């Protein structure tokens, strides 16, 4: 029992240590994180040019636009997760550090969410405002995104790890990841739609929460297996 406590304290320390390092790296290279948010805002601003400035139509497609562009913004930043560590040799040292690789990978995924997913969530109301989303939709949109965007980092991390070192990995990775993003997209959008239609939103949010818990439990270990393959 006592030993178990020491082990989990060690894991928490490893998690915090790796998270701190990745956040510090992101802070020193602020441009990278800013790029994802800028992409999110810019890409989402393009739709009105394509579909016309009909306020009713824009409000109707607002949840879908926010979710799809958020998903693409996260996708574009996934190569940051392992690629640089892989190229400069850090990844093989992380893989053979005397700490569980799953915990290290989980910390890297958490740092990725904090520097990519969270800024996108913060920027989401701007886009929703541009699309004249009815005010009643905002709380649910934010809740759904807070539950859904960590899933994007977690699931995307598995794809990023699996395609590490692959030829044309940059093209392969979205092909692996995008189909896995579909459930998050569906429930993220329907949660907002349900709230606008006056239907209960709880089931949608609970399903998103369940996806987050499942992904948090499984994705780090799956990605760790991919990393181990990549450094061998």
């Amino acid at each position: 029992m006592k030993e178990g406590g020491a082990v989990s304290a060690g894991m928490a320390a490893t998690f915090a240590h790796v998270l701190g390092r990745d956040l510090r790296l992101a802070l020193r290279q602020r441009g990278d994180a800013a790029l994802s948010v800028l992409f999110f805002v810019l890409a989402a601003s393009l739709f009105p040019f394509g579909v016309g400035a009909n306020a009713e139509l824009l409000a109707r497609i607002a949840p879908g636009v926010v979710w799809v562009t958020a998903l693409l913004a996260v996708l574009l930043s996934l190569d940051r997760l392992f690629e640089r560590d892989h190229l400069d040799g850090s990844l093989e040292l992380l893989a053979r550090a005397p700490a569980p690789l799953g915990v290290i990978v989980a910390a890297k995924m958490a740092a990725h969410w904090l520097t990519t997913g969270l800024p996108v969530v913060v920027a989401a109301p701007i886009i929703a405002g541009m699309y004249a989303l009815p005010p009643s939709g905002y709380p649910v949109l934010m809740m759904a995104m807070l539950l859904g965007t960590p899933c994007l980092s977690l699931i995307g991390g598995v794809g990023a790890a699996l395609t590490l070192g692959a030829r044309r990995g940059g093209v392969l990775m979205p092909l692996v990841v995008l189909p896995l993003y579909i459930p998050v997209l569906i429930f993220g959008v329907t949660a907002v739609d349900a709230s606008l239609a006056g239907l209960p939103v709880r089931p949608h949010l609970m399903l998103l929460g369940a996806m987050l818990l499942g992904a948090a439990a499984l994705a780090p270990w799956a990605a760790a297996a991919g990393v181990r393959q990549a450094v061998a």
Partner: protein
Amino acid sequence: MPAHIAPSRAGTLAVRDLGCLRGDVPVFAGVGFALEPGAALVLRGPNGSGKSSLLRVLAGLLPAAAGQILWDGTPVDPADEAHRGRVAYLGHADALKPVLTARENLAFWARLQAAPADAAQAALDDLDLASLADTPVGRLSAGQRRRLAIARVAASAAPVWLLDEPAVSLDGAALERLAAVLAAHRDAGGSAVVATHRTLGLPDARELDMAHHEPAPLPPEAVP
């Protein structure tokens, strides 16, 4: 003599009849040695003879295709978490982040390797990097980066060091530093396996010529 970090848990690393595959191609076979506390082994051999692969197998990065690795006589899996802490590995890449300072880079790895708190500073002093400690690594020269990568190994309390061409881009003074650090490590009961083409000044180091461990040629039907 550098004020050196004493390795914890000194022990004997032994290897029996080790073989390794890269893809489906055998790289080496039948490698065996024992490395007692204080011993050093220098790997020699032409390019492609499997020196780096042997180090990667010992580091737990590549699976062994045949043979056994033993720690104090007990077979171990080098990829095992408990064993990973006993071995510090220096590969071809320096694993340094250009936007972090030398000290930050070193402190990260030292803590991850569960090294004592003062180990990073001691290693910086040992490798003559104290004056560069707060310089971002992006501004260091190749030789200075290599020294910092060696300092990472020196800061770990691992009893076994695996060094893959540690002397790359080092100048004469840095080579002497490396020799001193290695000597201090061995005096404290540590051991080292070093793949190198240069003379490192490792007194009574044994040599292992990988050219003697070439695998049997593939049978003709196995060649695609």
